[in-house]
């Protein structure tokens, strides 16, 4: 065998022309086998993956709503109405909110997941809001790619995170808090990330506060109407 025959481009040795049928059929067969395998693995892994995702969400919601007895997923539609479900296919247009209830069935607060650009990339967070008192319950950063050791303190710095408990929106990120309600001390060296967190909550509430408050006043009216 001469050296020339073993170059990459000439192997494996094949007849001058492979028929189109053979090419299509072998690619088709390989594709079908691959598809079958993937569907099989997908079927096996689907359940644990979804269970994990639901668990992560459940933990986050209970954390920012101070351990409600149960919570319900509701949708805020683009025209501001709150619905228990939306027509299939339009979920992406509506905003999901999670309303928490205590053991007696009273609505205690609402958790909202939202995100916007931080210093590096999108920051995603969830916050709990109590429309009755008009105060935040808690804030938890779910995803961030901020600078490790600096900007990512918005997730890990407990002193920063705990400031959101009982804060009155609209919030303001400041360098030195004067004690006014709604003031959040920005993290030293991570002012931009801190401001992004505050901005996400402010903008999210500006959009959702009215429908949420309307829903809660209706809910309490319904409760009073009942014996």
């Amino acid at each position, binding site marked *: 065998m001469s050296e020339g025959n073993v170059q990459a481009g000439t192997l494996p040795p094949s007849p001058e022309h492979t028929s189109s049928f053979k090419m299509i059929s072998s690619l088709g067969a390989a594709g079908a086998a691959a598809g079958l395998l993937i569907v099989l693995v997908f079927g096996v892994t689907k359940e644990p993956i979804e269970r994990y995702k639901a668990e992560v969400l459940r933990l986050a919601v209970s954390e920012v709503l101070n351990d409600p007895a149960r919570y319900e997923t509701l949708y805020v539609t683009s025209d501001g109405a709150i619905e228990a479900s939306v027509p299939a296919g339009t979920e992406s247009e509506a905003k999901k909110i999670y309303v928490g209830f205590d053991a007696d069935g009273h609505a205690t607060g609402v958790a909202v997941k939202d995100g916007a650009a931080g*210093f590096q990339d999108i920051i995603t967070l969830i916050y709990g809001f109590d429309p009755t008192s008009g105060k935040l319950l808690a804030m938890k950063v779910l995803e961030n790619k901020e*600078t490790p*050791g*600096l900007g990512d303190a918005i997730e890990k710095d407990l002193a920063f995170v705990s400031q959101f408990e009982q804060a009155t929106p609209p919030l303001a990120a400041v*360098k030195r808090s004067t004690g006014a309600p709604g003031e959040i001390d920005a993290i*030293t*060296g991570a*002012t*931009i990330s801190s401001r992004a967190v505050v901005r996400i909550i402010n903008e999210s509430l500006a959009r959702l506060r009215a429908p949420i408050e309307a829903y809660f006043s209706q809910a309490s009216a319904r409760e009073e109407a009942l014996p």
Partner: protein
Amino acid sequence: MNASHRIVTASPHIKAADDTPTIMWSVVASLAPVVASAVYFFGPSALLVLAASVAGALAPEALLGNRGARSLRDGSAIITGVLLGLTLPPGIPLWMAFLGGAFGIGFGKLVYGGLGQNVFNPALLGRAFLQAAFPVAITTWPAASKNWWALQGDNFAFPLMSPKVPDALSGATPLGLMKFEQTSTPSLDLILGSTSGSLGETSGLIILVCGAYLAARKHLEWRIPASILATVAVFSAILYAIDSAHYPSPVFALFSGGLMLGAVFMATDMVTSPVTHRGCWIFGVGIGLLVVTIRLWGGLSEGVMYAILLMNALVPFINRATQPRTFGALEAESKP
């Protein structure tokens, strides 16, 4: 024909007594007043930090430099060390200053082949590394102490360990105050240097005088600092005229942060700046525009370091684009 490669320009040539060590040592000498002002403002901490960064710069040169002895004696590593030290806050742990110097020389100079081969200014590369590695320590400015002898921070933190957080944080340099709290600092304080900041970030006036001395001795290309400072002044004056509430005044822009130090001592590094006069103007204007852009619209409060490093990367292209034509070559080419 081989000899023709050596001919740079037409004769006559002047034979000068200047060689690399002479120039380097005169730069070291002209840095002395800047160092002295740093010690005046920040006390013994300033000297310690400078000593650590110089030691850091010399260490890889002594260990790994090909002609170790020579490159030690020509003083270039000492300049790198001093310049790096001047960009650091006085309270930084000494081991960090040492590491920055070692990184700057090791990865910024020796891996390229030593003096004259590097693309980026080694002092700024060391500083960029420290900024990326220890972003908190390098932006911690302890409040000025009443006692001149007192250390400015936890200089003696054990190597690889975090510094203790100082009791009182002044929190911000003039640029930081501007960016995050929209407060300006009085111009006189800025010019004389009685502000919080890195060692060499304080007295713009002294740096200007030292630069003028070097330029007069022709050890410094005056076109570079002139074009940087002019660009910053003009660009900020335009913005200030448009919206004086939002943008700082040109005087503030010129005398705050590390602009003076960068423009006079770092951008003018002979190895990493263009060789042609036209190239120097382009280089300087580019740095000036980048400095203002990063300071005003970037995430960081100071942009001199990245502005110079970015323009360093463009120097080979600037050199090629501004190569003077051989006399008569254009005509010869245009005629068929």
